[in-house]
């Protein structure tokens, strides 16, 4: 059986198998969630290399601590470990500030050309990349706690309950942080309205 086959996807069975020491089952779970884990790490750390390291560390830590998973949302549990790994990295970076390769240009896309969707038209790819870059810039201007909630809900699609579980905060806190973050994002996108691709511009006409 192909563990990553969508038709045969059974997260609970995979988790149980991984808890019994089946590394392939755990890798199947990782394949399913690694993009979300990496994006969360990227938005928290604002640095591709640091996000890469933190994601890898979090995956290893998750496997070693799999026995502590008591059910519920495996995605929320995994993303909580990613979040903690990112906070550790941030603390470490504060003690030892360093210059990121990001400062020398956006190289990671060129390093991984195979990751692009070949079916996408070049103009569309450019447009989507512009949109993503603008959104990432706007997200970077949000306070960290609001940015984290916004990424988890609106970028990664977690429910309020999963976010509360991931960040170990109350549901009410999730709602209020999310509302403030969305309001700030709206204002930022309105400020940069002309920079957005035409079909993505916010329409503020009454």
């Amino acid at each position, binding site marked *: 059986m192909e563990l990553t086959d969508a038709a045969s996807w059974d997260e609970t069975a995979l988790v149980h198998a991984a808890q019994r020491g089946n590394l392939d089952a755990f890798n199947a779970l990782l394949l399913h969630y*690694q*993009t979300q884990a990496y994006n969360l790490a990227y938005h928290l750390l604002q640095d591709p290399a640091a996000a890469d390291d933190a994601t890898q560390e979090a995956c290893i830590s998750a496997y070693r601590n799999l026995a502590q998973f008591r059910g519920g949302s495996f995605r929320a549990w995994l993303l909580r470990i990613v979040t903690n790994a990112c906070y550790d990295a941030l603390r470490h970076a504060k003690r030892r500030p360093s210059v990121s390769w990001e400062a020398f240009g956006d190289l990671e896309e060129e390093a991984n050309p195979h*990751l692009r969707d070949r079916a996408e038209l070049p103009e569309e790819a450019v447009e989507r990349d512009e*949109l993503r870059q603008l959104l990432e810039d706007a997200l970077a201007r949000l306070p960290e706690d609001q940015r984290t909630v*916004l990424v988890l809900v609106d*970028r990664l699609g977690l429910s309020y309950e999963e976010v509360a579980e991931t960040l170990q905060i109350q549901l009410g806190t999730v709602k209020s942080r999310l509302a*403030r973050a*969305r*309001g700030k994002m709206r204002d930022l996108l309105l400020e940069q309205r002309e920079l957005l691709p035409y079909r993505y511009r916010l329409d503020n006409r009454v």
Partner: protein
Amino acid sequence: MGRPWTEEQLSAYLDHQLPSGEQRALEADLAHDAELQQRVALLRQTIALLQTAPLREPPRNYLLTPAMVASPAAAPARPRRSPSSLWAMRLATVVSAAAFVVAVGLNLNPAPMPTEQRESAALSPETPEAMLYQEAPITETQALSRSAPAPLPQPTVAAEEPVYGLGGFEEGYLSAPPGAGGLGGGEEGFAAAPAVPEATATLDACAEDGSGECAEATADVTMTLKTVAAFSETAPITITAAPEEPTATLEAPETETSYPQSTVPLWVTGLLGVATAGLGYGTWRLSRRH
């Protein structure tokens, strides 16, 4: 115009997280409130944009291998010192540095008198005169030692001899009456200075008496004053007062210089310096590792 809706309520409404009663009320307001419609529309577009933009692709897969998930105990992990050991190192460095500074300070500026002697002298209730009568003639050892010629007129205070009850070397000098018996101003013979007025007083009393009984005492006192006048160049002297008066045997002070030496040997100071440098370097390395 309906009720004022907050951003949090609008945000929850778009996620279907509002209680059903509030949701119906909001939808009713939306039907006729254009401004509210615009607020909701902008928020909805913002959320849609966030959900539309592509996620970053991870630069690689994070699949684990058996070697990567091997037990940390089996891995050649670097020994990590706990933060408490770092603080202990810092404390040891500070203590060592402080001890080194104190040792260097003691070597550079040795104390003129041991602390306990200064304290005992300062606390003595005796007046200078009383001390002279009671303690000046004191020990046989001192008397014997004074029989030797004074090698050099250097300031000396005998360790056991409380001087003037004021404590301290310099204070003893300052307490001497100005111009007393030609000894003032000299650094030596400070203990004899108060006895000179006594001898002079005895001489005056005998002169007033006019009897011949004091002749011998007068001769003694006169001799004493002459001897005292030449004190600065001579060996230790003895002043003997009249028989009726309390006897005060005054000796010239010891001429042997006895500044206390530092209690910290040089090799200990050097050892403290080396230890401080070593601990400082170790603490720096440890803090960098943490």
